[in-house]
């Protein structure tokens, strides 16, 4: 187990190295000069050259890249072109907002999708099943930003129950955090719930037709026991992967939703960094997202081995 984790962490380091290289090279291809953008109307050739030299942009590409890597290893991801603050601090302070939104959205999605998927599979063809299918069709077809806007109009505009946007840290005021996170989390969570409902339903249906389910029925077990002990345990194993992929992509920041709800997360940060050509921040944000993605995948592999005795991690 320990060896597995160490090996996977080393592999992750290699992947992260690749990510830095790709992002670095891509940014060279993007048109627009960050220093020029930063100077704006105050442009004059002398300041321009001085700033370029200070950011190391006058060096050859390879030198710039290895310089970046060397400092990244010590936790220094450079400074923001725009604010001059360290990038590491900027991306880390955005993490709690994104983390709390992503986790809340996934929890909401699970609370909706697990019961719905189960009932929908067991009573396949019933009214509940049809309703569940309409729901998941709706969830995957309707764009999330539109649902977000409708949510704001209804719950904060018409009913006045929830604030339309903004963020309060969970650690500052859990109550106000909850009222602020509700709308964006449900908006994002509905899409995830739709995907999960479908997946759980089909996974359950597949397991329901397995021979060992008939064996369980032949033993005269109650339906509840057959479903929970034999069907669910097997059906949910592949669902873990889907949940993890969803969680990982939400951790990457839901750009549109974070912008819509003025949610100061990684997605919003990425958006702002792109708009301002703040390359160090953009690089830092992408690196953090990639690291989170790798971490979630590692956790899933460990979880998999716990759930399925046929899989061992070595």
């Amino acid at each position: 187990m320990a060896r597995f984790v160490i090996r996977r962490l080393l592999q992750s380091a290699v992947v992260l190295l690749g990510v830095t290289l790709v992002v670095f090279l891509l940014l060279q291809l993007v048109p627009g000069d960050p220093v020029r953008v930063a100077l704006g109307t105050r442009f004059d050739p002398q300041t321009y050259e001085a700033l370029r030299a200070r950011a190391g942009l006058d060096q050859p590409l390879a030198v710039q890249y290895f310089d970046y890597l060397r400092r990244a290893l010590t936790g220094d991801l450079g400074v923001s072109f725009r604010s001059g603050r360290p990038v590491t601090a900027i991306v880390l302070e955005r993490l709690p907002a994104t983390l709390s939104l992503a986790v809340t959205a996934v929890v909401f999605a699970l609370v909706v999708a697990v019961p719905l998927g189960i009932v929908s599979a067991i009573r396949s063809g019933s009214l509940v099943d049809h309703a569940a299918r309409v729901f998941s069709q709706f969830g995957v077809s309707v764009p999330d930003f539109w649902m977000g806007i409708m949510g704001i109009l209804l719950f904060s505009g018409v009913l006045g129950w929830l604030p339309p946007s903004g963020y309060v840290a969970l650690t500052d005021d859990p109550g106000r955090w909850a009222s602020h996170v509700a709308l964006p989390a449900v908006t994002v969570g509905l899409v995830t719930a739709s995907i999960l409902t479908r997946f759980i339903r089909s996974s359950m249906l597949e397991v329901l037709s397995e021979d060992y389910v008939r064996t369980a029925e032949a033993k005269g077990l109650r339906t509840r026991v057959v479903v929970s002990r034999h069907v669910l345990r097997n059906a949910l194993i592949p669902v873990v992967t889907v949940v993890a992929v969803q969680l990982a992509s939400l951790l990457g920041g839901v750009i549109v939703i974070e912008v819509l709800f003025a949610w100061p997360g990684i997605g919003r940060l990425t958006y702002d960094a792109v708009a301002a050509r703040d390359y160090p921040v953009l690089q830092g944000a992408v690196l953090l997202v990639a690291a989170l993605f790798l971490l979630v995948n590692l956790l899933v592999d460990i979880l998999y081995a716990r759930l399925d005795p046929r899989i061992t991690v070595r």
Partner: protein
Amino acid sequence: MKPVLAVEDLTVTIGTRRGPAHAVAGVDWAVQPGQTLALVGESGSGKSMSVLAATGLAPRTARVTGRVHLLDAELTGVTEERRRRLRGRHVGFVFQDPMTSLNPVLAVGRQVTEAAEEHLGLTRRAARSRAVELLDMVGIPSAGQRVDAYPHQFSGGMRQRVVIAMALACEPDLLIADEPTTALDVTTQAQIVDLIGDLQRRLGTAVVWITHDLGVVAGIADTVAVMYAGRILEQGPVDAVFGAPSHPYTGALLAARPDPTADGADLVTIAGAPPSPLELPAGCAFWPRCPVRGDARCAHELPPLVPVSAGHQVRTFYPQPSDGERR
């Protein structure tokens, strides 16, 4: 003696997109305490379906009619809840493929005694020691350690032993063995046949053995019912049916058995294929393939099941004379 399980005029009709499929078209059979009834026939002849329907395990789309008696209980028209309580407690099942009939994520010991926990109220602790006992009984070496192993850690033959232990967990009155050796390799097949026979003698369990292996039937069964297209064509004591097959189909089946002493001889087959359960013929279902090929009556009229000797019945207008008479 009162039979353990008896079905009367059982029919199973399965709704399909192309119309109703008559999987079982009216069968009667009974298995006596401690005895073995063999249901033989080709794939799709309704042998498994008749047993599954009798015990409430038919697919949800199936419509079952007829009467079923299990011990003293009449199972016709009772709730599924009542049937569930009898299943596992009084009837144990061994299915065809041990590679798929065990839950891959549950330790085998747990699976073996689940039924006992449910029906006999065993605690988890008592169940565990009972599991070791049962695994030991079916010949699993070092059962005390293997009880916590998972199905994938067992070979096919060992898994089938686990399934047998599972079926016998509540010491049922009846064991349903649905082609229990078909998926196993030949050397293991004989061991499983012997094991079931041995346990049957020790526990006094009655067995319904579903198979298409006539060689096995001759060795273990007391009575045999030959099924074809959802009906019984011939049934009776195994010696009578195999010694003096009266139906042309039984004769053809016995003739089609491979003969290990006939070196290089071609295998005997029965030309043609069984009728589709979607459109059973009005007359004898075997008529189109029948070597006797009686007359128009065979094609249009269903022959009744008539006795030929004590307990030996046959469904044909042209019962075949036994070998003795023929000579």
